[in-house]
C-alpha cells in the first residue's frame, strides 16, 4: 500500500519484481523484429478513480488529470498522464513510474486532495495490472487470434482503450498508434497472457507459406 511504502532507495527498487519478469528473456527471443514485438513495461503508476464526472469532485479530479473520458473507449489526459474509461463512473489513471508517491511523485496526493470529501474513491492500483507493449505491423493479427473486438483501424481508432478479453483473459486494450497496442492484464494473469501472446506471435518468425 502507498501508505506503507518506504522512501525510495536503490535497494528497494532492485527488489521489485514485475509480474512478467520471468518472461523477459522469452519476450526478447520471441519478438519478431519488424513484424510483432512484445515487451513488458513494468511498474507504471495506475490509480483507480471512481467518481461522477459531472459532480464537483469529478470536475476537480478532471482538472488534475487533464480531463475525464466521457464514454466507452475514450482516453483523456494531459502530458504523460492518461485517463482510461472503465465504466460510467470508473476510470483508470495511467502515469509514468516516477509519478508514484513512493518515488516522490505527487499524482496520488493531488488526486486525493481533489476528491477531498466528495463521493468517490481514489485508490493506488499500480500493482494491480502490468503493461505489455505489442508493436509491429502484425500486432493486430496477433490480437485477432484471441480478441473478439473488431480491431480493424476503420473501427478501432488509435487512442482508444477498451476493456475486453484476449485469450480469455480480461484485459484493458489500449491502441496507442496504428501498429502498437498497450495491454493491461491483471498481475496474476500476466505470465499466462505473455506466453499466450508469444505463442500467437510465433508463426510470424517463419517465412510465409504461399
Amino acid at each position, binding site marked *: 500500500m502507498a501508505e506503507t511504502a518506504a522512501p525510495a532507495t536503490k535497494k528497494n527498487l532492485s527488489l521489485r519484481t514485475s509480474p512478467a519478469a520471468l518472461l523477459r528473456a522469452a519476450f526478447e527471443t520471441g519478438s519478431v523484429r519488424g513484424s510483432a514485438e512484445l515487451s513488458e513495461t513494468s511498474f507504471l503508476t495506475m490509480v483507480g478513480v471512481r467518481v461522477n464526472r459531472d459532480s464537483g469532485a469529478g470536475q476537480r479530479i478532471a482538472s488534475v488529470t487533464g480531463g475525464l473520458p466521457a464514454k*466507452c473507449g475514450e482516453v483523456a489526459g494531459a502530458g504523460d498522464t492518461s485517463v482510461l474509461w472503465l*465504466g460510467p463512473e470508473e476510470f483508470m489513471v495511467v502515469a509514468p513510474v516516477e509519478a508514484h508517491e513512493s518515488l516522490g511523485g505527487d499524482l496520488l496526493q493531488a488526486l486525493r486532495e481533489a476528491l477531498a470529501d466528495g463521493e468517490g474513491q481514489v485508490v493506488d492500483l499500480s500493482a494491480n495490472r502490468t503493461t505489455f507493449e505489442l508493436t509491429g505491423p502484425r500486432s493486430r493479427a496477433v490480437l485477432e487470434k484471441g480478441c473478439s473486438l473488431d480491431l480493424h483501424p476503420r473501427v478501432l481508432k488509435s487512442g482508444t482503450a477498451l476493456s475486453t478479453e484476449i485469450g*480469455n483473459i480480461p484485459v484493458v486494450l489500449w491502441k496507442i498508434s496504428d501498429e502498437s497496442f498497450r495491454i493491461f492484464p491483471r498481475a496474476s494473469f500476466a505470465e499466462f497472457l505473455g506466453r499466450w501472446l508469444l505463442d500467437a506471435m510465433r508463426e510470424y518468425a517463419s517465412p510465409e507459406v504461399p
Partner: protein
Amino acid sequence: MLLISCPNCGSRDETEFHYGGQAHVPYPENPNELNDVEWSRYLFYRENTKGAFAERWLHSTGCRQWFNMLRDTVTYDIQAIYPMGTPRPDSPAATSSNPGTKPGTTAPEGATK
C-alpha cells in the same frame, strides 16, 4: 454465441457478460412477516417462460454495469435492452420507443448458444 449490445459499451460477445436471472423480482416489503413457503417462493421460484423473458445481465468484463434484457428463450432474439429500474417494455410499441433499445443490434434469428 450471442452478440449483446451493452448500453454503455456497444456490441460485445456473450462471454464478456454474466447472467443475473429473472428481472423484476421485487424484494418482499416485510421479509420478517413471510412464512417459510412464501420466503422460498421469493428466493427460489422463477418463471420458466417459453418466449419473451425479461432478465438481468452484467457486463462483467467491460463497464461492470447491470442492465435488463428482453430475450426470446426460443429464438434467442434480443428484443430490448433497457436500464435497471425501468418497467418491462412489454408491447411491441413500447419496445420500439424505448430509449435503451438500439435497433439493428439484436442477435441473428436462430443464433445458437
